[in-house]
């Protein structure tokens, strides 16, 4: 039946794509990310943030410089989220980050222009946000769930229609037979 040809073609394309390109999907990052907790903060005399150090789950330390274009999305203990760029809130950024350091709240930092010096990575942070759960860059489970549910539901619906069509066709043949 036509419907099933269509379904089969889609399924094959889908499976082929996922199988072939899954590795590149994981690696396809325009900006690298680090998840971890803040272990050090450096400010200038005006209490503006200059650099901070993040330790990830393996204990690797990464030092981040901040620039005017660095973006923050950080919450305080009460859950109020504070979103701004470094240019407008460098003091608040220092305060928030040190609060995060005290509370051991994990954050996610995306960065660019990384340099490596005897195992110590240094980069310029582009965004500093609270981390909720899982590693963002590898939360493929969600994507998988979405694709699976979408196609399963569509196929289930097409299957349901196919069954309906079968019944209808059977009735038509019965009627035709009865007329002869």
């Amino acid at each position, binding site marked *: 039946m*036509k419907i099933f*040809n*269509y379904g089969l*073609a*889609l399924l094959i*394309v*889908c499976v082929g*794509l996922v199988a072939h*390109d899954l590795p*590149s*999907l994981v690696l*396809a*990052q*325009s*900006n690298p*990310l680090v998840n971890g907790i803040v272990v050090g903060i450096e400010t200038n005399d005006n209490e503006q943030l200059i650099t901070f150090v993040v330790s990830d789950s393996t204990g690797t330390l990464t030092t981040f410089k901040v620039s005017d274009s660095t*973006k923050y*999305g950080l*919450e305080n203990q009460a*859950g109020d*989220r504070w*979103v701004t760029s470094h240019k407008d809130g460098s003091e608040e950024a220092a305060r928030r980050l040190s609060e995060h350091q005290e509370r051991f709240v994990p954050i996610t930092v*995306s960065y660019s222009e990384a340099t490596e010096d005897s195992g110590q990575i240094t980069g310029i942070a*582009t*965004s500093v*946000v*609270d*981390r*909720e*759960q*899982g*590693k*963002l*860059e*590898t*939360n*493929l489970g*969600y*994507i998988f*769930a*979405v694709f699976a*549910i*979408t196609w399963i*539901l*569509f196929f289930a*619906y*097409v299957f349901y*229609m196919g*069954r*309906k*069509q*079968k*019944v*209808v066709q*059977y*009735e*038509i043949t*019965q*009627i035709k037979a*009865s007329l002869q």
Partner: protein
Amino acid sequence: MTKVINLIVSPIALSAVLMGTTLWLILVWVPTETNQGAVQRILYLHVPIAWGAMMGIIVVSAGSFLYLWKKNEIWDRLAVASAEVGVVFGGLALLTGMIWAKPVWAVWWTGEAKLTTTLILFFIYVAYLMFRAYFPPGTQRQRLAAIIAIIGAIDTPIIYFAANLWSQAHPPLITGPAADSESSLGTSLGVVLLASTISFTLLFILLVKMRYEIRKSEDEIKHFKRNHQLDSAVLNNISQARGTS
């Protein structure tokens, strides 16, 4: 040979090719978004599916309105076909939205206006289909179902307005890592979204057409049975076939 050519140029094949291309665009071509990571790719499915659900509602209410006006069964068939497909798309839009919201907003569900509106509309059109299933067959069923669809359509802006007002009074606690961050994607997002929307629109049309055709055959059988009183033996056979298959 002509059979092969027909298959290649058929809308179904076109849809399959488009859908395949879209999948390639979503999964491979477009770069990963920085703030949200890979989950952002859900957007390319979620938005077109939600668009399909919206199309469903528009077609249902237009079909229902035309049915009440013209009393032509064609419009009723169109309405019921797109209601069914629309409910499938709507359910999927809700599910994909929830799965996307979890990593990004850290919650499965918030009282955001679009979400609330989609959910309520989903329920209205589920009720529409259930009404059709429960009501004794006949033209009254079609008329009343059309009225329900139109009421749902009229209710839509009111629901959206109310939900919007409501979510202003109760600001959603969106706390995920990327809740308010700007996207790092530029034009590539638009390209993939457009391609995906086109393929899902085509899929929507195809599904509605299939459902419509089945409905049409069912109506033809009904008319036939009405006009020629069939041998009871044949009718028995048919009802048995219905029961077993």
